[in-house]
């Protein structure tokens, strides 16, 4: 075995050991906690932002009609199915009248009887009047006694009272009949407006209590979105703002506007409620209750210093950004203004246009962190 000369061997050993030593120093300083933190910087820009609010809501019908009987009873028939368009005044179904028709029949008979009684009273009255007149003349001719004449007068008065009673009875019985007829009509379930049948709650034969809905109608033209905004993100919400509506089931956006902001907020969920109406009702009609995402654009704000929201951090209770000045890190407290949905935030105080601030960092930064400015942080796939 031939050995290298000493010089050559030393060289070979150095060739192996030196790179190792260099690598070791590199590893010790460039990785682990001693390594500089890769960061990306951005300049504070002067630009206008368009704040917007984002909320979710459900498609609802403004007018929802629940149609049911006013008395407890059994459903006799229902002529409409869910999805049917109905006209104002259309009969949707009817309740079982049970004995109402028979009672109307009885009232009719009763009416005839009372009419007969009336004509009997009328005849009695006519006769009594004739008799009274005759005895009046006889008394004038002194052909009858005062007493008889008085008794005839009395009979006339009684007959008159009978006639009045019979007339009023006729009125009463007629009113009774009309009442029953009104009740009979009341058993018909009528559509109060033109609309769409959305619920059929009971089938013929079902017994329902007074006030229970049998059929529900909505007015399709009155669809709106009942939208909820987190109170913290509801600043500037007002009526007539333009809104973009995204329905969960449908591609694309619909435009609408804020109809009103509800004066009552939801205290439990800490949300502000608003109603957003469609500019044009989508066709086909979106199902009532469908989830909708609403983006309300607020008026654009004048240009101001703007930073990305990823730059904002809270250190020791103060909101601020890491500013790079002459290669050194400095935490600068800022006060923030309006923000838009793309993550731009206005800076009211603390920074001026052109200041360089840290946006992304591979680690939490400290004032004494060494930084290494890069275009994109390692490991981030775009």
């Amino acid at each position, binding site marked *: 075995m031939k*050995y290298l000369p*000493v010089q050559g*061997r*030393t060289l*070979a*050993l150095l060739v*192996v*050991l030196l790179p*190792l030593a260099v*690598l*070791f120093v590199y*590893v*010790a300083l460039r*990785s*682990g*906690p*001693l390594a500089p933190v890769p960061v990306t910087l951005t300049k504070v820009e002067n630009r206008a932002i368009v704040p917007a609010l*984002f*909320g*979710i809501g459900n498609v609802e019908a403004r007018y929802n009609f629940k149609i049911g009987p006013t008395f407890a009873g059994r459903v006799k028939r229902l002529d409409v199915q869910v999805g049917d368009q109905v006209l104002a005044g259309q009969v949707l179904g009817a309740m079982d009248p049970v004995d109402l028709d028979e009672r109307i029949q009885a009232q009719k008979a009763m009416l005839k009887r009372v009419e007969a009684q009336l004509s009997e009273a009328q005849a009695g009255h006519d006769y009594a009047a004739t008799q009274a007149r005759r005895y009046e003349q006889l008394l004038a001719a002194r052909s009858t006694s005062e007493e008889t004449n008085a008794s005839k007068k009395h009979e006339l008065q009684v007959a008159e009272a009978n006639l009045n009673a019979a007339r009023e009875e006729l009125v009463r019985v007629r009113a009774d009949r009309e009442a029953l007829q009104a009740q009979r009509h009341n058993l018909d379930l009528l559509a109060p407006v033109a609309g769409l049948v959305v619920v059929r709650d009971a089938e013929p034969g079902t*017994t329902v*209590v007074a*006030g*229970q*809905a049998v059929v529900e109608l909505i007015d399709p033209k009155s669809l709106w979105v009942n939208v909820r*905004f*987190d109170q*913290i*993100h509801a600043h500037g919400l007002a009526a007539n703002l333009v809104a973009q509506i995204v329905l969960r089931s449908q591609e694309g956006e619909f435009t609408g506007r804020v109809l009103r902001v509800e004066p009552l907020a939801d205290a*439990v*969920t800490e949300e502000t409620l608003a109603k957003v109406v469609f500019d044009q009702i989508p066709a086909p009609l979106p199902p009532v209750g469908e989830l909708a*995402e609403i983006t309300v654009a607020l008026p654009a704000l004048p240009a101001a210093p703007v930073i*990305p*929201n*990823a730059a*904002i*951090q*809270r250190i*020791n*209770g103060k*909101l601020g950004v890491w500013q790079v000045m002459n290669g050194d890190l400095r935490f600068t407290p800022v006060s*923030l203004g309006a*923000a*838009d*949905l*793309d*993550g731009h*935030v206005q800076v009211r105080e603390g920074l001026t246009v052109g200041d360089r601030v840290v*946006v*992304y*960092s*591979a*680690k*939490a*930064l400290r004032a004494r962190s060494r930084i290494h400015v890069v275009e994109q*942080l390692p*490991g*981030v*796939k*775009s």
Partner: protein
Amino acid sequence: MISLAGRDIMHAWGKFVFTGVGLGLLIGITLSMAGIYRGMVDDAKVLLDNSSADLWVVQQDTLGPYAESSSIYDDAWRGIRGMPGVARTASVTYLTMQVRQGERDVRAMVTGVIAGEPGTPGWPPYLVAGRQITRGHYEAVADIASGFKLGDRLKIRRNHYTVVGLTRRMVSSGGDPMVFIPLKDAQEAQFLKDNDAIRQQRRRTAENPAFNRPQVPGLLDAVIASQSTNSNVNAVLVQIEAGHNAEDVAESIRRWKRLTVYTRSQMEQILVGKLIATSAKQIGMFLVILSIVSAAIVAFIIYTLTLGKIREIAVLKLIGTKNRTIVGLIMQQAIALGVIGFVVGKITATLLMAPIFPKYVLLEPLDTIIGFAAVVVICILSSIVAIRAALKVDPAEAIGG
């Protein structure tokens, strides 16, 4: 004066260096194991750091929200916010679940953060890409370890979320990447049952005559509505005002709000001392055994290296070399071997081994220094055995045997 050790190494440097490299791989594994242990503890600590809370208010008598489940009403923060010394409060939910994206799903800790601005407790403190959440619903900030990219659509329960920002080192104590979503969505994700379960529950309720009473129309709907709402969160994170003592504020919340409150040090105690205690001990035990085995192997290597040179040592003794010189030769070689091994070990552990582990491996400089000292000490100790053998050798062996 010429270095006997140096001359001897030069004599067969290839063999020496390769032995050193082999030893280095072993040391690299040991260092990585220490890094895994440190990484586990660090995972638990970054979870606490990332929540940027001073106090954790949880359900009474639970170790929540990380070590046990805890649920408190989502308006509990209002009362806590009014306590003296409280600067900021934020409700938060944590739920470890599978997050779907396209074909694959990733185990992640879904964290619900309240609406607000960056810097709110519970929000990711820094990002590596994208932006923070600005909409109150259906946006997510995911940890980069989850493999999600900006613009990905995630499916959590029945809703889809768009990834708008990426973070780094935001993991649960188990090392699962975190996905931040708005609190209201997270409450839904945590407590919302799947559609089949909801339908079954509705049917069950409808069949219960106590709830479905014909005389009371609307009762059934009201009962079902109340069954499908959720107004709970897992914890309230509290930041305290400067100048207040965390323990004092915690005590007053415990006393007046009848909730359990943990300070940062107590929370760390729960996470490190209880939640990851067994697995950390497991890794720690493995580290101890590995260290012992490494020490034994170093000792064997040096002993064999010395025995291989026994004839040369006998010659040295024969020509009257002092014992001190022979001890120096063996010990210098042992230390040189140890140094090469350590350097190779550190490099392989940092560049090759640490990046391929799925969970975080934290190689601390202090561990490296301790490791270096331990390697040197082990080399010196193990060379003593070899030195004993070398000194006992009979000079006659040089010419005999």
